[in-house]
C-alpha cells in the first residue's frame, strides 16, 4: 500500500511539474536549479526547495492532502543486484539502498547510496570457479527504474570472471542515472584487467565493492563573444604594444649578412689596393716555374 501511494505521489509529481510550468515563480526557481546542476549537492538546497514545494501545492487541494505524508518527500528506495554465472538464471546478489530526493521541479536524484553485498554461497562459489576455469562471463543486472523495479527492462553488465579476483573479489560499479532511471551500469574490476587473463582463485571469498553514481554532465553554453571580442580588443589594445625589442633583436638577420657583405667588400677593396703588386708578384711566381720548365 505504501508503495502504491509512493507511486501515486511520484506520478503526481511528474504530473504536477508539467502543470507547474505555468507558474512563473516556479520557472525562475527551476531555471536556477537547472543551471546550477541537476542535482544540488547540499541538503540545505534541498530543504529550501522542499519548503517551496508546499506553496506550489496550494493550487490544488487534492494534492495537498497527499503531501501531508512527510516520508514521501525523501523516500528510501531499495533495489536488488542480481547476478548470473555464465548462462545461468539471475539470482539476488546484493541490495542497494539509497535516498531518493525529489526536487520541486519534479526531478529526482538518488543520494547516499549504500550497498550490501551477499557473500557467495557454496554453490555459487563452485559456479564461480567454473567461470574462472572457462574464462566465462559473470553477469549482473539492475532494474532500469529504482522506484518501480524492474522498470522497463533490466540493465545488464558483464565481465570476464578472471578480471575480478585479486586478494578478494574486487568489483567496481558505475551506475549511470537519469532521474530515477538507471541507464547503464559499468561493471568490472577497479583497475586494470591483465591480458592474457590468468586463472587465479581469490584468496578471500568476500567482495570488495566500490560504487559510483553518475548523472549526466551539462554541456557548457556556447560562449557568445560579441561583447567579449570588443572587450578583448580593448584588452589587447592595452597589451598589444609588445615590449619594444631592440633594433638589433629585430633586424639581426639582415644585419649579419649586411655586415658580412661589408666586410667582404672592405677586404676586397684592400686587396684591390694591393692587387697590382700582389698580382705581379703572383704572376712572377707562376711564371718562374714555367720558366724553369
Amino acid at each position, binding site marked *: 500500500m505504501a508503495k502504491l501511494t509512493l507511486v501515486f505521489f511520484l506520478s503526481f509529481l511528474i504530473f504536477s511539474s508539467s502543470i507547474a510550468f505555468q507558474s512563473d515563480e516556479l520557472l525562475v526557481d527551476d531555471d536556477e536549479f*537547472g543551471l546550477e546542476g541537476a542535482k544540488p549537492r547540499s541538503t540545505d538546497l534541498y530543504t529550501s526547495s522542499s519548503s517551496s514545494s508546499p506553496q506550489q501545492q496550494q493550487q490544488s487541494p487534492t494534492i495537498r492532502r497527499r503531501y501531508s505524508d512527510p516520508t514521501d518527500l525523501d523516500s528510501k528506495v531499495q533495489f536488488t543486484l542480481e547476478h548470473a554465472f555464465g548462462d545461468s538464471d539471475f539470482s539476488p546478489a546484493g541490495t542497494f539502498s539509497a535516498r531518493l530526493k525529489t526536487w520541486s521541479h519534479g526531478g529526482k536524484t538518488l543520494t547516499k547510496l549504500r550497498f550490501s553485498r551477499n557473500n557467495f554461497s557454496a554453490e555459487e562459489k563452485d559456479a564461480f570457479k567454473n567461470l574462472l576455469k572457462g574464462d566465462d562471463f559473470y553477469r549482473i543486472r539492475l532494474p532500469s527504474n529504482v522506484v518501480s523495479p524492474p522498470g522497463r527492462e533490466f540493465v545488464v553488465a558483464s565481465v570476464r570472471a578472471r578480471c575480478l579476483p585479486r586478494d578478494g573479489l574486487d568489483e567496481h560499479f558505475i551506475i549511470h542515472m*537519469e532521474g530515477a532511471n538507471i541507464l*547503464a551500469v*559499468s*561493471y568490472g574490476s577497479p583497475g*586494470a584487467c591483465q*591480458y592474457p587473463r590468468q586463472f587465479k582463485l581469490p584468496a578471500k571469498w568476500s567482495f570488495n565493492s566500490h560504487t559510483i553514481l553518475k548523472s549526466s554532465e*551539462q554541456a557548457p553554453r*556556447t560562449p557568445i563573444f560579441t561583447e567579449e571580442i570588443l572587450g578583448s580588443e580593448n584588452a*589587447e589594445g592595452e597589451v598589444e604594444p609588445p615590449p619594444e625589442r631592440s633594433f638589433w633583436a629585430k633586424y639581426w638577420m639582415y644585419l649579419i649578412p649586411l655586415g658580412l657583405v661589408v666586410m667582404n667588400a672592405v677586404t676586397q677593396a684592400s686587396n684591390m689596393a694591393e692587387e697590382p703588386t700582389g698580382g705581379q708578384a703572383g704572376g712572377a711566381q707562376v711564371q718562374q716555374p714555367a720558366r724553369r720548365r
Partner: protein
Amino acid sequence: MAIRVFLVLVLFLSSAIVSFSLYEDQAGLADWHQRYIGKVKHAVFHTQKTGRKRVIVSTEENVVASLDLRHGEIFWRHVLGTKDAIDGVGIALGKYVITLSSEGSTLRAWNLPDGQMVWETALHSAHHSKSLLSVPINLKVDKDYPITVFGGGYLHAVSALDGEVLWEKDFTAEGFEVQRVLQPLGSTVIYVLGFVNLSEAVVYQIDSKIGEVVAQKSMVFPGGFSGEISSVSSDKVVVLDSKKSILVTIGFIDGDISFQKTPVSDLVENSGNAEILSPLLSNMLAVKVNKRTIFVKVGGEGKLEVVDSLSDETAMSDSLPVADDQEAFASVHHEGSKIHLMVKLVNELDNVLLRETIQMDQHRGRVHKVFMNNYVRTDRSNGFRALIVMEDHSLLLLQQGAIVWSREEGLASVTDVTTAELPVEKDGVSVAKVEHTLFEWLKGHVLKLKGSLLLASPEDVVAIQELRVKSSGKNKLTRDHNGFRKLILALTRAGKLFALHTGDGRIVWSMLLKSQACERPNGISLYQWQVPHHHAMDKNPSVLVVGRCGSDSSAPGVLSFVDVYTGKEITSSDIGHSVVQVLPLPFTDSTEQRLHLIADTVGHVHLYPKTSEALSIFQREFQNIYWYTVGADDGIIRGHVMKSSCSGETADEYCFTTRELWTVVFPSESEKIISTLTRKPNEVVHTQAKVNTDQDLLYKYVSRNLLFVATVSPKGAGEIGSVTPEESSLVVYLIDTITGRILHRLSHQGCQGPVHAVFSENWVVYHYFNLRAHKYEVTVVEIYDQSRAENKNVWKLILGKHNLTAPITSYSRPEVFTKSQSYFFAQSVKTIAVTSTAKGITSKQLLIGTIGDQILALDKRFVDPRRTLNPSQAEKEEGIIPLTDSLPIIPQSYVTHSHRVEGLKGIVTAPSKLESTTHVFAYGVDLFYTRLAPSKTYDSLTDDFSYALLLITIVALVAAIYITWALSEKKELSEKWR
C-alpha cells in the same frame, strides 16, 4: 626519414591557414559532376510545336525535369523537397508545366521553355488522401479552362494563367473521394465521379466557371469498391469490387448512374483476384488475372468482352489518338535478350502499326513503364517513339528500332558506396592509347609554358584546357602510381551495382542483382569481400553485395559476389535467412576473403564464407567476437557475444547463437535514440600521441569499439521549433561496445536534433540545433587516454618501464577524459564526412554537406577543443586558431565550387596512394567526385607543373656554363699570351 620529412612539411603547412580553393581554370580537371533525375513516374510529351522536342517527367526522387527528346539531355530540372512527392504532371495552355505535389496540397506552374516557376498555389488539405490532377487538354491557348485538383477532401479549380483558386468545394463532410474528373470538350460542365466510403458512387455535375453543383446523382453499390478504377471513355469507368472478382462498369450518361456487373470468372476461367492495370485505353481496359494480362473491350452498353490476352509480363502505355479517330497504344514485352515494341490500334488489335525488336542489355531487367508519343514521318505516315523505364530505373528512348538515348537513372538513388582498385597494368599491354608521341608531348608543354608566361592566345588557352583534361591518362583502366585512378562502386536502390571511373565518371561496368527466390531484390549494402594484398595475388578483388527480397527487414536476404575487374557475378546465393546487420570481421582466410557475420531477425548470426577454413579461423577467435544491436524503437542498446553453434536447432554449422552481455536502457519518457555512429573500420591513425604546446603529451583514446549515440527527448524528436527549449534536451554518449561502459555523457539542455555526426580517430563532431540561441551548433568531443599519460618520461621509455606495448583489454577500467567545445554554425547540414588519407598523416578536413546541396571543406583545426580566446605565442605557432563563437564559412572552401549535388544524401571519402590526397565522392540525385588535398599537395608536383620550363632552364644553364667556360678559356689564353 620520409615520414619525418612529411611531418615537418605537415607542420609547416598546417601553420598557415590553408583555405582550400581552386583557380577557375582548375575546375573540372580532377572533378566531375553528373546530373540525374531518378526513376520516372509520369511523362508528358511536348512535341506539337516545331522547335525543340521535349518530354516533361516527374520522378520518384521528387524531380520535375524537361528532357531533350533528341539527346536525352536535361533542359531544366527542379528537385523538390524530400517530403514534396509529386502526384501529377500536366501541361496547361501549351506553355506551363503543372505539377501537383505533397498529396494534392501544392500546385505549381513552371514555364515550359526554361523551367522558371510561374506561380505556386497552396491548396487546402484536410487529411491525407489520394490526390488527383486534371489538366484540361485544350488546343486553344487563349481560352482559360481551369485546372481541377482534388486532394485532402477538397476539390479546387485553379486558373492556369495565374494560379488563382477560382472556387473550391469541400467534400470532407461527406467523405467523398474523387476518382475521376471528366471535362467534355466545349462544355462548361464538368463531371466529378467519386466514391463515398467505397460503397456509393456519386457523380456531381459542376459548373466549371463558378463551382456550383448543377446536378448530383448517387447510387449505392452493395458489394463495395476496391478503389481500382480505369476510365474507358468519356462516360464510363470500370471499377473492381471489394472482393476483386467482379468488374463493375459505371456509366453516367447525362448524370444517370448505371452499374453493370461482370464477374471476372465470366471472362477468364479459373480466375483468381483481378487487378486493373494503370494504362488508359479508350473503350478498353487491361486487367491482370492469373499472371496474364487480358484486354477487355467495353461495349456500348457496358458489356465486357475479352479481345486479347498476353502471357508474359507486358508493359503498356496509355492510348494515344492517331489519325482518323483511332487510338493506338504501345506494348513492350521481353524475349530473351530482346524486347519487342508493338504499337497497335485499340479497336483492331490485329492491326499492328509498328513492330520493332531491340537488343537490350540483360542488366537492365524488365520494362516497367512505357510512355508513347507519335510523330509524323517524312513520308507523312505515323511514326511512334516510346520512352521506357526499366527495372534498374534507367530511362531509354526507342525510335525506329533503336535506342536513341539512355539515361542511367538508377544512379539517382545510390544506397551504398565503396571503392576498388583497378587492375595493374601488365607489361607490354597498353589498355588505352593515351601516351603521345614525343613531339606532341613537347608541343603540349610549350603550350603550357606559353600559358604560364601569359603569352597564350585565346585559342591556345582552349587547347591548354583540353590538354589538361585529357592529360596524365586519367581515364585509363589501370592502376596508377598515385592511386588517383580508382573504381567507385555504387549500389542503387534498384539493386544494380555500378562501377564508375574516378577519372571521368563513366560507367565501366554495371550489374543487376538477381535472385532465384524473388523477382526484384533491393540493394542494401556493399562490402569489400576479397582484396588480394599479400596472398592470392592472382585472384581478382571482389565485393559482396547484400540485397533483400522485399522492403521488410525480415525478408530473406540475397548475397552476390562480384568480380571488381570484370563486373561479372562470381556466385550469388539466396541465403534463406533475413539480414539485419552485416559485420565484417577483422580476419581473412588464405585467399584473403574477409570473414563476415550476418545477423538475422531471430537472433542468430551466420558466418560467411561457408568454408571449413573460415570456420576454423572463426572458432579460434570465437571468444573475442562481440557485436551490438541498437533498438531505436525501444531505446535499448544491447551487447552480444557468441554463445555456441546453433546445431540444436538447425544442422547449419555456420550458424551461431549469441547471448546478451550488456544493455543500456534509455528511459522511454525522456530519451529517444536519434543517431548512432561508429568509426570507419578501415581508418588509419598515424599517431596515438598528441603533443601539446607546453611539450606535454596526450594519448588519444583510439578504440574501434566506440559507439556514438545521440538521444533527444521524445517531444523534441519532431521538427525544429516544435518544442520550447525547456521541453527538449539532447544527450550524447560514447559507449564502449564490448562492455557497454558509458565513457562520456553530455547533455545539451534546450537543444534538438536532427543530429549529424562524424567520428574519426578519437574525436566526434556533431551538429544539432540550439533552441535557446535559435542557431545550429557544432560540438567537438575529443577523448584521451589517461592510463598511458605516465609514459612521458624519456628514461622510462629507454628502460622499457612503460605500458605502451601492453595489450589493451576492454575489461580494464578505462581512464579517459574528454575535452569538448561548441561553436555556432550558420548552416543547416545534410551530412558530414571527414577526409581520409593513406597513412593518416595529413591534417583532416570536415566535409559538410550543406542544405544548399554543396560540400563545404572545414579544417579540423576550427573544431579543436584547445582553441582559446587568446592563444599564446606558442599555441599560435602550433596552429591553434583563436576561439570564435561561430565556425567560419569561407566561400572558396566549397569543394563543389559551382555545382550542386542535388538531393545530397552521403559523402564517401577514400584514400589515394599519395598521402596528401583523398578521393571524395558525394551522392544524392546527382553524383559528384573530386580529389582533395587538405594540406595541399606537398608530396607531388602539380599537374600543370611546367616540365618544359624546367628543361629549358636546365638546357639554358648548361649552355651558359659551356659558353662561359669557352669564353673564360679564351680569355685565359689571351691572358697567357699577353
